[in-house]
């Protein structure tokens, strides 16, 4: 048995303490958003999910408090204290205190085209080795974004880690199938495997060009397919050139 590092127990303890100490009711009262039903009715479910039973309907004119949101579901409470979960599309059709439609960013295709942040997990092939990693992207215009990616790959003779920054240009930001082009640069660390005769680990600069396709699936989810060509600037006479193919699942915020 190994002795657990104290940091983990401290973390777990802090988590539990925070969980027990944070009063759930205090959250509910401080500046809660309110809305009024203008549809004929809206359905309240017992839990956040389309399969859960509808146990109450709030009628036109009823005022509801919006307590919290989880994925596409918003927990609401009416004046009589009845609490339930309503889909965000229904909440988007309510009005605020001034009678204006409630400003609510729903997870629609429209929101996808207006996204600021995206995050995804990628898996694929880097020069005939398995590779995986994640990336974070920030869109500063509808067409242009910057991305940071951390990747690791596993080969028979060596494995490596790579940290890269890229600029990504998408041609048609409003398209469901949206192609993009990218250029990037970064660093790569290569470690020879221990079963081979020991050679030094090495760190090289890398540059890349690539192209790919984003495909919006539904709500916040989209697929990402991409190809990149890397030039690894080694100390040896020739630079390494590597092709990389990846598929990823991403979400936007």
């Amino acid at each position, binding site marked *: *048995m*190994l002795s*657990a*590092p104290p940091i*983990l127990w401290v*973390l*777990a303890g802090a*988590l*539990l303490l*925070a*969980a027990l100490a*944070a009063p*759930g009711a205090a*959250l509910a009262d401080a*500046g809660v*958003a309110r*809305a009024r039903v203008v549809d004929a009715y809206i359905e309240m479910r*017992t*839990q*956040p*999910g*389309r*399969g*859960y039973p509808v146990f109450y309907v709030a009628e036109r004119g009823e005022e509801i408090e*919006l*307590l*919290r*949101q*989880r*994925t*596409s*579901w*918003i*927990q609401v409470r009416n004046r009589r204290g009845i609490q339930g979960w309503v889909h965000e599309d229904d909440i988007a059709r309510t009005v*605020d205190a*001034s009678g*204006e439609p*409630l*400003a*609510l960013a729903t*997870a629609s295709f429209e929101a996808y085209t207006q996204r600021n942040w995206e*995050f*995804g*997990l990628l898996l694929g092939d880097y020069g005939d080795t*398995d590779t*995986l*990693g*994640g990336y974070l992207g920030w869109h500063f215009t509808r067409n242009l974004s910057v991305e940071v990616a951390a990747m*690791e790959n*596993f080969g028979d003779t060596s*494995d490596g880690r790579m940290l890269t920054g890229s600029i990504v240009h998408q041609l048609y930001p409003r398209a469901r199938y949206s192609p993009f082009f990218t250029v990037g640069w970064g660093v790569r660390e290569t*470690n020879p*495997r*221990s*079963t081979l005769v020991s050679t030094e680990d090495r760190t090289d600069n890398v540059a890349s060009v690539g192209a790919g396709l984003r495909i919006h699936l539904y*709500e*916040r*989810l989209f697929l990402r397919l991409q190809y990149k060509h890397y030039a690894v600037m080694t100390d040896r006479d020739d630079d390494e050139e590597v092709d990389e193919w990846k598929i990823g*699942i991403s*979400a936007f915020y």
Partner: protein
Amino acid sequence: MENRYQRVLLTLLCCATLSVQAQEDAAQSPLEVVRPQVERRDVRPAAIDRQDFEVGTFAGLLSIADFDADLVYGLRGAWHVTEDFFLEASYGLSQGDQTSFEKLSGGAPLFEDADRDYTYYDLGVGWNVLPGEIFLFGSRALKSDLYLLLGAGSTDFLDDNWFTVNAGAGYRLLLNDWLAWRLDVRDHIFDRDTFGEDETTHNIEVSMGLTVFF
């Protein structure tokens, strides 16, 4: 010379007519009795507390192929992207005990103690395939989810990194609006060539954890 006089005169004439026109315009416009005070509506997204992220710790047993089953513990975080799918990352630590051969032969150990440390991370996608409710004491209903997981990651064991595929299933029970209890069973599958030839190993982990939604 004559041309210049003409030009100056014409310019003056133009200016005069324009200023008269402007005066007439001012006279025709109605008196402003009440200055309309239209407040610009501030369109802000409604301030709703979003709780799509889940983080927590877990501890359990990891059965390492050719080694013992040992304590495993770590951190886990998830982003609930839709009600059906979440992206998840885990980081876990364990340690391989002596292999059966080492115990039986009684000879010198095959690996240094430091190489026996088993650390892994994995990134994956979870699918809440069976959402449900648990009824406690007849009066309370707690949300539950049975989910399937598929992911990939890296295992650092016996002084090498191995590309690892993860598959598993888990059960999440929300104890209140933001605290969840989780039970996970996953198989960490990777090809290892430590004992000469490539062999696929299955390393099964059973763990429990507490997570917080925020």
